[in-house]
C-alpha cells in the first residue's frame, strides 16, 4: 500500500468500502487481503488530494450504520424469522432476538472501529485536540460532534434500537425476573443469560462516556425494576404476615434477603445490588418493625438465642435509632438479672458473692453478645450501662452504695494468705478489674482498698508481695498514677523499713550492744496510711521494752531531722517465752498482752483494776486484750465478767501439746465505725482534690468567669468521682479565704489567680 496521498474519486472507493463494512459488522468472514485493502481505502480517503475526504467518509459511514441498525430492528428483532419458533415455548422471544442481534452488532462494531482506525486516530482524535485548543475557531459544529466509529455505532444503536424498544424490553425483563422469583430461582440458565445480557447492553451502549454512563440504564431499567420489586416485596411481606409467627417471619425474611441478593447478582448491573437490597430491607423490615418487635420482650427474657440472632441479622442493616427497642429491652433484661443476683445477698461473705455473681452476669452476656450480636458495640455498651446501673445503685436514698467496699474486700480476700494457687488468684484479680471499672465512686473503693492493704502490710498477711504489686499496677493502669500514689507510698514505707531494720541491727552489732530481743520495726509515714483515728492510746510501756525503743529512737533521729516517732502499740505484737510451767512455751501475742504477762514476774495475783492502773490502759483496750488471755487459759480469772475486783492469776497447771502458739485476737475484725469513718474521709479528700484542681486551672488561666471555671472543673478527666457543683462552689470559697484566688474588681462572678 502506498502512503503517498493521491487524487481519488470518492464514489470509486466508497461502494467497495461500504460492502466490506457490511461484512465486518455482520461478522462475515473477510479475507486478510481484502481487510488490508479496505484499511488503506480509509487511509486514502482521509488523506486524499486536493481535499481530504474524511468528513465525507464519516457522514457516509454514519448513514450506513443508521440504516443497518434500522434494518436489523425490523428484520431481526421485531419480526420473528427463526425457524425453530414452534419448539420454543417462550412467547417473549423479543428478548432473545434483541440479545442475539446485540451480541452480533456489539462485536461487529468493535471490528469496524478497528477498520477505521486511521480515521479514528488521525482525523477524529486530532479534531478533538484542536477543539480543546480552539485553534481553528471556525470548525463547523457538525465536525465538532464527530465521534470515533465505535462510539458512533453504539450511539446509533441507542437511538434506533434501545429507545425504540425500551418499554417492551423492560416489560419482558421484569416478567422474566418475576418468573425466576416465582420458581425459586430455577429459571433456565440460557434465559438468565439472555436477560442478563439485555440488561447489561443498556450499560455497555453508554460505556464509552466518561460521565453519566449509567444514566440510560438507571432511567430506562433500574427505576422501574426497583419499583416493581418493591411492590412484589410488599405483597410477599403481606402474605408472610398472614401465616407466620414473628420467629418464622424473621427466618423467612433472612432467606428472602439471601435469595434476592443472589438474584440481583444473577441479573443486574453491580451498581444496582445495594439499591435492591435496600428496597428489600425497606419492605420486609423497616415497614414491619411493629410486627418484628411484637415479641421482643419474650424473646429477650427467655433468651431465645436463635430468635435473637435472627432479629439481630434482620435489624442490623437498619438505622441505629430503629434498633433502640431491642437494645433497651436487652439492657433492662441484664439489669434485672444483675439486680436479682445481688439484691438478696446476705452474710459475712457478701462481698465475694457480690463480685462473683456480677462477674457471672457480665461474662454470660458478654458471651451472648459475641455469639448472637457479633460483638456489636451498641450491645456492648448496653451491657456496660446495665452493669454500671446495677453496681452503682443505692439500696435507698439514705443508704450509700456499698459496691466499692465489696469489691475492695473481695481483693483483700484474694490477696490474703490462703491455699488458693497463685495463677487462680491472678486470674480472679484480673476479672475483678472488670467489675471495678463500673464503679463510679472509685475514691471510695480506694479508701477501702488502702485500709485493707494497710492491714495486710502491717500484719504481714499478704500471700505474696508480687501479687500485691500486680494489683496496684492494674489499678494504676485503670485509673492513673494519682489513684495509686498513696498505695505506692505505703509499699515504699515497708521496703524502706526493712532496709532501716538491717541498718539498725548492723549499727547495734558495731556498737557491741545486744538487746536480747529480735526486733523488727515498721516506720510508716503519717498521712499515707489510712489508720483510722491515730489518737494515741495511753499505755505505760513496761521497762522491758524501753531500752529497745530508746536505742531505735536515738538511731532514727540521728538519721532524720525534724521528725517525731509515735509508737502504735495497738498494732504491735511479739513473742514471749514462758518459763513458769513444766515445759517452756513461746507464745505470740499483742504488746498489751505481753505487758500483762510481764506483771506476773513479781507477783502471783493481781486485780483487774491493779493491772489497768499499772499499764494505764483504758477500759476498751483492757477488755479487748484481757478476754483472749483468759480464754487461752494462760491466766485464770476469779469471775466470768472482768470487773475491777476480779482477781487474775497465772494458771500454773497450763499445758499445751504445742510449744509455740499464738493468742488469737479479735483485733483484725473491722468495726462498723471503721466503715463509717472510711466513707466520711472520702468527702474530705474530694474537697482537697477539687481545690488542687481549681488552683491548677486558675494558675494557667489567670482570670476566669465563675461558670467557665465550673465547666473546666467538670470537664476534667474523670478519675475517681463525679464532682457536684455545690462542692466546687465551697472549694472556690475556701480558696478565696486562703487567698489563692480573689474576685476581680470589675465583676462579682470572675476570679483571678493570686501568685
Amino acid at each position, binding site marked *: 500500500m502506498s502512503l503517498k496521498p493521491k487524487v481519488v474519486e470518492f464514489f470509486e472507493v466508497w461502494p467497495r468500502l461500504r460492502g466490506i463494512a457490511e461484512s465486518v459488522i455482520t461478522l462475515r468472514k473477510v479475507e486478510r487481503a481484502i481487510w488490508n485493502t479496505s484499511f488503506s481505502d480509509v487511509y486514502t480517503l482521509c488523506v486524499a488530494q486536493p481535499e481530504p475526504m474524511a468528513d465525507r467518509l464519516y457522514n457516509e459511514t454514519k448513514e450506513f450504520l443508521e440504516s443497518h441498525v434500522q434494518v436489523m430492528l425490523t428484520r431481526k428483532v421485531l419480526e420473528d424469522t427463526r425457524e425453530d419458533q414452534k419448539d420454543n415455548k417462550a412467547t417473549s422471544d423479543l428478548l432473545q432476538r434483541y440479545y442475539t442481534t446485540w451480541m452480533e452488532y456489539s462485536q461487529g462494531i468493535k471490528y469496524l472501529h478497528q477498520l477505521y482506525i486511521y480515521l479514528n486516530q488521525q482525523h477524529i482524535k486530532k479534531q478533538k485536540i484542536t477543539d480543546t485548543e480552539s485553534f481553528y475557531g471556525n470548525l463547523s459544529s457538525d465536525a465538532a460532534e464527530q465521534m470515533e466509529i465505535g462510539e458512533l455505532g453504539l450511539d446509533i444503536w441507542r437511538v434506533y434500537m434501545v429507545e425504540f424498544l425500551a418499554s417492551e424490553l423492560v416489560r419482558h425483563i421484569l416478567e422474566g425476573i418475576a418468573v425466576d422469583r416465582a420458581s425459586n430461582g430455577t429459571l433456565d440458565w440460557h434465559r438468565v443469560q439472555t436477560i442478563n445480557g439485555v440488561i447489561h447492553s443498556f450499560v455497555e451502549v453508554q460505556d464509552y462516556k466518561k460521565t453519566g454512563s449509567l444514566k440510560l440504564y438507571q432511567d430506562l431499567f433500574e427505576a422501574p425494576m426497583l419499583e416493581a420489586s418493591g411492590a412484589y416485596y410488599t405483597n410477599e411481606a403481606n402474605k408472610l404476615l398472614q401465616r407466620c409467627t414473628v420467629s418464622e417471619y424473621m427466618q423467612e425474611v433472612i432467606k428472602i434477603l439471601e435469595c434476592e441478593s443472589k438474584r440481583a447478582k444473577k441479573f443486574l448491573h453491580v451498581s444496582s445490588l445495594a439499591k435492591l437490597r435496600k428496597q428489600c430491607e425497606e419492605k420486609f423490615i423497616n415497614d414491619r418493625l411493629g410486627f418484628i418487635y411484637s415479641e421482643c420482650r419474650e424473646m429477650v427474657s427467655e433468651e431465645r438465642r436463635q430468635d435473637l440472632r435472627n432479629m439481630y441479622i434482620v435489624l442490623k442493616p437498619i438505622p441505629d435509632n430503629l434498633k433502640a427497642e431491642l437494645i433497651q429491652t436487652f439492657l433492662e433484661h441484664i439489669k434485672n438479672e444483675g439486680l436479682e443476683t445481688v439484691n438478696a445477698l446476705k452474710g459475712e461473705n457478701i462481698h465475694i458473692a457480690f463480685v462473683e455473681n456480677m462477674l457471672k452476669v457480665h461474662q454470660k452476656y458478654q458471651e451472648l453478645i459475641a455469639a448472637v450480636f457479633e460483638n456489636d458495640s451498641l450491645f456492648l455498651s448496653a451491657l456496660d450501662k446495665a452493669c454500671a446501673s446495677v453496681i452503682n445503685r443505692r439500696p435507698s436514698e439514705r443508704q450509700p452504695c456499698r459496691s466499692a467496699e465489696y469489691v475492695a474486700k473481695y481483693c483483700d480476700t484474694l490477696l490474703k494468705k490462703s491455699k488458693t494457687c497463685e495463677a487462680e488468684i491472678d486470674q480472679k484479680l484480673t476479672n475483678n478489674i472488670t467489675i471495678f471499672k463500673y464503679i463510679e465512686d472509685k475514691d471510695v473503693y480506694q479508701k477501702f482498698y488502702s485500709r485493707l492493704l494497710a492491714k495486710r502490710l502491717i500484719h*504481714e498477711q499478704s500471700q505474696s508481695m508480687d501479687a500485691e504489686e500486680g494489683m496496684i499496677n492494674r489499678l494504676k493502669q485503670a485509673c492513673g*498514677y494519682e489513684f495509686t500514689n498513696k498505695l*505506692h*507510698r505505703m509499699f*515504699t514505707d515497708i521496703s524502706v523499713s526493712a532496709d532501716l531494720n538491717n541498718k539498725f541491727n548492723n549499727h547495734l552489732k558495731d556498737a557491741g550492744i545486744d538487746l536480747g*530481743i*529480735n*526486733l*523488727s*520495726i*515498721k*516506720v*510508716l*509515714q*503519717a*498521712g499515707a*496510711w489510712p*489508720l483510722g483515728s491515730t489518737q494515741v492510746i495511753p499505755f505505760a510501756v513496761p521497762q*522491758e*521494752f524501753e531500752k529497745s525503743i530508746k536505742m531505735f529512737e536515738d538511731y*532514727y533521729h540521728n538519721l532524720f*531531722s*525534724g*521528725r*517525731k*516517732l*509515735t*509508737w*502504735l*502499740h495497738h498494732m*504491735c505484737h*511479739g*513473742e*514471749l*517465752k514462758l*518459763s*513458769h510451767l513444766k*515445759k*517452756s512455751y513461746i507464745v*505470740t501475742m499483742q*504488746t498489751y498482752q505481753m505487758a500483762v504477762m*510481764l506483771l*506476773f*514476774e513479781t507477783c502471783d495475783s493481781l486485780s483487774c483494776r491493779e493491772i489497768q492502773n499499772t499499764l494505764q490502759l483504758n477500759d476498751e483496750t483492757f477488755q479487748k486484750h484481757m478476754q483472749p488471755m483468759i480464754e487461752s487459759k494462760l491466766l485464770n480469772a476469779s469471775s466470768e465478767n472482768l470487773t475491777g475486783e476480779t482477781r487474775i492469776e497465772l494458771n500454773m497447771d497450763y499445758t499445751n501439746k*504445742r*510449744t*509455740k*502458739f*499464738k493468742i*488469737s485476737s479479735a483485733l483484725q475484725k473491722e468495726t462498723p465505725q471503721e466503715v463509717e469513718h472510711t466513707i466520711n474521709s472520702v468527702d474530705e479528700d474530694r474537697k*482537697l482534690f477539687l*481545690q*488542687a*484542681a481549681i*488552683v*491548677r486551672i486558675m*494558675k494557667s488561666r489567670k482570670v476566669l468567669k465563675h461558670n467557665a471555671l465550673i465547666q473546666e472543673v467538670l470537664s476534667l478527666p474523670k478519675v475517681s468521682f463525679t464532682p457536684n457543683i455545690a462542692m466546687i462552689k465551697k472549694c472556690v470559697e*475556701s480558696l478565696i479565704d*486562703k487567698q*489563692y484566688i480573689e474576685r476581680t474588681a470589675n465583676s462579682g462572678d470572675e476570679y483571678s489567680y493570686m501568685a
Partner: protein
Amino acid sequence: MADDPENSVDKPDDNDAGKPEKMFTLKKWNAVAMWSWDVECDICAICRVQVMDSCLRCQAENKRDVLGRQDCVVVWGECNHSFHHCCMSLWVKQNNRCPLCQQEWSIQRMGK
C-alpha cells in the same frame, strides 16, 4: 486459741543455765511506729493543708521524688512555728515575718 501447725514439735528449750531464769522473756517484738514532722500544729497556716501532705501548690503540680513521696518538706522558724517550706519561701518574698507571730522570719531548721 489457734495452734500454729508449723511449730508443734515438743522439744526441750535451750536454757541459759548460767543466768537466774526469768519467768517471762521477750524473744521477739514486731513494732509499728509512725513518723510525722515534729510540729506544734500539724496544719500549715499558709495553705491550710496538713504538713504531712504536700502543700496545695505541690499537689496541683504533682511534684514528687522517685520514691513517689511528694517532695515538700517542713521548715521551722526561730519562733518555732512551722510551715511547708514551699509555702514559706513564697510568703517571705512579700513579707519577711512569720504569719503567726509577726516575728522576723529566720529559719531554725528544715525537715529531712
